[in-house]
């Protein structure tokens, strides 16, 4: 099994969270999606821990026997590999008024589904979800991206949880301009 798939499936060996916690985490992710789609970036940044590790590796078409290498490992190229300063830089950029790729802004819609939650080794939660990112801009252009996210949440913040790690497994190998956050 590929590193990436192993990674996203890791949670399955952990203790599942109960229904209440699933509900709570769902609302948290929906809140995140809402602020992102409303371009409320301060709200969004406030959902991450200071040591957030936000990453989305590149993926490849590989031979059957090399499927284990179909998702890039650490140290190889990623689409995103940001710490908090990096995310803030992206946000500042968009709000600078000079980020032409987002002026006028994309109208995005994050659909978050298949949310599953496990207890981590400490008081953290391991969360898997599927997403579809619908995006339209300027004319009739529509792009639809999809994939899975594996988030690690820790207690904190006004919404009860903060994201400490986000691992995004985008389904595409070749992408379009990634001027939006996932």
């Amino acid at each position: 099994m590929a590193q990436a798939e192993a990674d996203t499936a890791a949670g399955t060996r952990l203790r599942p969270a109960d229904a209440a916690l699933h509900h709570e985490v769902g609302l948290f992710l929906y809140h995140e999606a809402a602020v992102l789609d409303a371009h409320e970036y301060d709200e969004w940044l406030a959902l991450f821990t200071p040591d957030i590790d936000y990453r989305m590796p590149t993926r490849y078409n590989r031979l059957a026997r090399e499927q284990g290498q179909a998702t890039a490992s650490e140290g190889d190229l990623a689409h995103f590999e940001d710490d908090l300063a990096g995310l803030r830089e992206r946000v500042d950029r968009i709000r600078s008024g000079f980020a032409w790729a987002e002026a006028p802004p994309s109208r995005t819609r994050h659909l978050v589904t298949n949310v599953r939650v496990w207890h981590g080794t400490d008081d953290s939660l391991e969360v898997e979800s599927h997403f579809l990112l619908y995006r339209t801009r300027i004319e009739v252009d529509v792009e639809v991206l999809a994939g899975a996210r594996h988030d690690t949440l820790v207690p904190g913040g006004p919404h009860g949880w903060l994201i400490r790690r986000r691992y995004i497994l985008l389904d595409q190998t070749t992408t379009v301009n990634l001027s939006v956050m996932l």
Partner: protein
Amino acid sequence: MAPREALSTVLDGELVGHDGLVDRRVLCDEDLYRRELESVFERSWLFLAHESQIPNAGDFFATTMADDPVLVVRQKDGSVAAMLNSCRHRGMRVCRADVGNAKAFTCTFHGWTYDASGQLVNVPKYDEGYHGELDKSKWGLVRVPRVESYKGLIFGTWDEDAPTFVDYLGEEMCWYLDSLVDRREGGTEVIGGVHRWVIDCNWKLGAEGFIGDMYHSEMTHASVGLGALPDKGWQYGAPRGHGTGFFIDGLEYWNGAYGDEVVRYYEEIAPEITNRLGAAAADLVSACAHGGVFPNFAYLTGAAMTIRVWQPRGVDRMEVFSWVLVDRAAPPEIKEASRRGMTRAFSASGTLEQDDGENWSEIQRVMRGSVARKHPINYQMGFGHERDDVPGLPGTVGYVNGDLPGRGFYRYWAELMRQGPLKRANGDGSG
């Protein structure tokens, strides 16, 4: 373009004028696109891969030459072979992986098998079906007839009579390109993986941009807070359409972009660069240099480096293949800083990249109608102010903000278009 206006009429006209104006149809006309695949791409040296991508025998990388699929394969003898990724039987793509290691390529349609050099080594039912009469030596994969490696960069061309790659570059451009690939002992290597993304624009917008357009930087990339860029610098354009441009004296500019450590790294290697390539090269590398080899290879050098290809995917779409390049001799933390920095700035999610793409794709979209495409675009900047007396810099150069390489790019493109396709035996079974 008037419908069905004969191509010859168009080509006789001034698609690329001597006055620095370029007819916009070069970017949006479907017939010109089909012709440039043959007249420009089949006659030119095209980037295939970096040597470090395929270190071991059997390592392959699947890429395209323009929009034709090509396999680049490390041979047992250490050489590199490139071949059309299309079975000679009925044309199936023989390898559908992007990258990997294989001893042979077996076609999934009828099972013809080719070895790593493209030789046809097995044909099912060879005796019963073909009665042993198929001459296997003539039905190997179509080899790219000329493949050359220049300091780690592997190029190939379909033109058997092409000049050597070094002659194609020209002595002057070699020197400029060396500031990318030969600045330190040991040369360069790429970080694992490729960034691939599509932009809905003609490939020449990317190509000419990296060859000759420093001018856009302040406005296009205003969002990343570059502030005022250095005001000193030069650009160079080669007779065969290559080009580069660079600031000098812009080292402090890197602090913001990649942090102190890359600046320190540069200060440390500056003597080595000076020693290898001369002080002018050290100057050039100290700040960001853009550049490209005609038609569609591009690079950035400086504190961090990237190489890329603008793969045409129709008249109004291109696919970018982009790598992060590092000095082989650089310390791990500098390689890591390069990897993260270039990913942040120059990948599909890159904070600089995104806005280039926005400009290019909107230029393309504006030409859908009939009026905008009739108005030529302007490459007059610095026209008549070329110089060939700048100390240390080979060739004719101009001020860093100028259109000298852009004019050269389009002039050479137009020359190839007038020459037309390669004369080549077609349809024979000899590959």
